[in-house]
């Protein structure tokens, strides 16, 4: 458990669904305060990689390691399972379709996990939730139900819900893809602020502007492999591979 070990590491992950191989020996490390953006055409395996790191999928080969400790392997033994459970709430995730719980108010969505999982006293959980709502500029929606909120507001609540567990790393799975352009901006603004505050983030995205200007590293995936990885804007200014160049061409009009 050396201090130089990456916060979270995908170590040679291969993932198959039946005969369909979605990831091929993908390795990716994320260190503290990194904002790693994963880009690539749809179907390239970005989301599956993220879901492996979020422990929603088990890798077919390879492993997920957090601060030097394996937390997910194919057919995990007791020790790995326990390690996975132990770091469960250190890995937060924001979904494309928000996945707020519709039968709970905004506040209830935020305090549910801290109270049930961290056994936090209710008052404390509420105080934290209120501070987070203020941060995402939704204090007035505290008692509203998700269905009453716009998509952008729902996603900001979902980010606040993830933050309520004070995760060490936050995974974003195309967090703005389901939103209209004007709603995207408010969500991206929150993500940018988190990056500024030093949150460790792994962001699967189609927002090239965010990857270029906010990301510390850009990873380009295609057909289940990492084709190219470069720090920050370098990937956009000087892509090395043909595939990456072709991919970036589609965004030139934007």
């Amino acid at each position, binding site marked *: 458990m050396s201090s130089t070990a990456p916060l979270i590491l995908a170590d040679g992950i291969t993932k198959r669904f039946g005969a369909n191989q979605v990831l091929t020996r993908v390795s990716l490390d994320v260190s503290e305060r990194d904002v790693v953006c994963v880009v690539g055409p749809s179907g390239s395996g970005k989301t599956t990689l993220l879901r492996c790191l979020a*422990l929603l999928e088990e890798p077919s080969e390879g492993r997920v390691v957090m601060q030097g400790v394996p937390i997910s392997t194919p057919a995990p033994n007791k020790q790995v399972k326990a390690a996975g459970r132990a770091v469960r*709430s250190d890995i937060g995730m924001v979904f494309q379709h928000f*996945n707020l*719980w*519709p039968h709970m108010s905004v506040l209830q969505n935020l305090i549910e996990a801290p109270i049930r999982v*961290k056994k936090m006293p209710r008052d404390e959980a509420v105080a934290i939730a209120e501070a987070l709502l203020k941060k995402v500029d939704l204090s007035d929606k505290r008692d509203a139900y998700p269905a009453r909120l716009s998509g952008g507001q729902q996603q900001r609540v979902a980010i606040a819900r993830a933050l309520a567990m004070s995760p060490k790393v936050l995974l974003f799975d195309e967090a703005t893809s389901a939103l209209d352009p004007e709603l995207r901006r408010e969500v991206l603004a929150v993500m940018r602020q988190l990056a500024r505050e030093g949150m460790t983030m792994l962001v699967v995205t189609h927002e090239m502007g965010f990857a270029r200007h906010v990301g510390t590293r850009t990873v380009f995936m295609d057909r289940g492999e990492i084709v190219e990885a470069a720090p920050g804007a370098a990937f956009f200014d000087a892509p090395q591979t043909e595939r990456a160049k072709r991919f970036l061409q589609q965004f030139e009009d934007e």
Partner: protein
Amino acid sequence: MGNKRDLSMFKYQFRWDTVWGSFDFLMGGLQMTLVISAITLVLAMLGGLIIALLDMSRFRVLRWIGISIGEVVRNTPILVQLLWVYYVLPIVFGVRIEALVALIIGLALYQASFISEVYRSGIQSVPKGHREAAQVLGLTPFQSFNRIVLPQAIRMTLPPLASNFVQLIKFSSLGAVISVSEITRRGMELSATNFRPLETFTFIAVVYFFICWPLAMAIRFWERRLQAR
């Protein structure tokens, strides 16, 4: 218009007083109808849960039992089932079953097979993403089911359960065949003594309608509100 048959209809002398005279007798039957329906609904909800759990069991034998019960019950007529429970069960087990008990058992089993499907679709109506969000936040599978899936599933199953209650009110009239003294049976007994089937059965039909129709409308309104959320 105006053939002999129609004229005979106009000449009919209504004798509604024969019905009013036995109003209390019929209302006692209605009370019985509602009590039977309510008890049966509660039993069917429990039975439906058992069948649903059998259906979703990890063990093949249990799954097979659950599915078989559902298929047999759904694909035989309810009246035949009632007759079977009333006449066959006593022969098999050598105990006399009261008609009322037989009716409740038969109806409950029948509704349970449908209610198990209601539960299943209620649980499946909760998007997978809601459970994944719970999982990522660290909730245990039990907490996730209890706090996230169940409250939403129950909300989805309440209107169909209410519809089942309406169905039970109507199906309980089948008790008349095995002499359970609910409102239809009492109507049969009354018309056998007052010789006024038209007034008697019309009145009974109207009573059923004015209980079932408002309930059905309320359920429809309720379902629309749920969908709007």
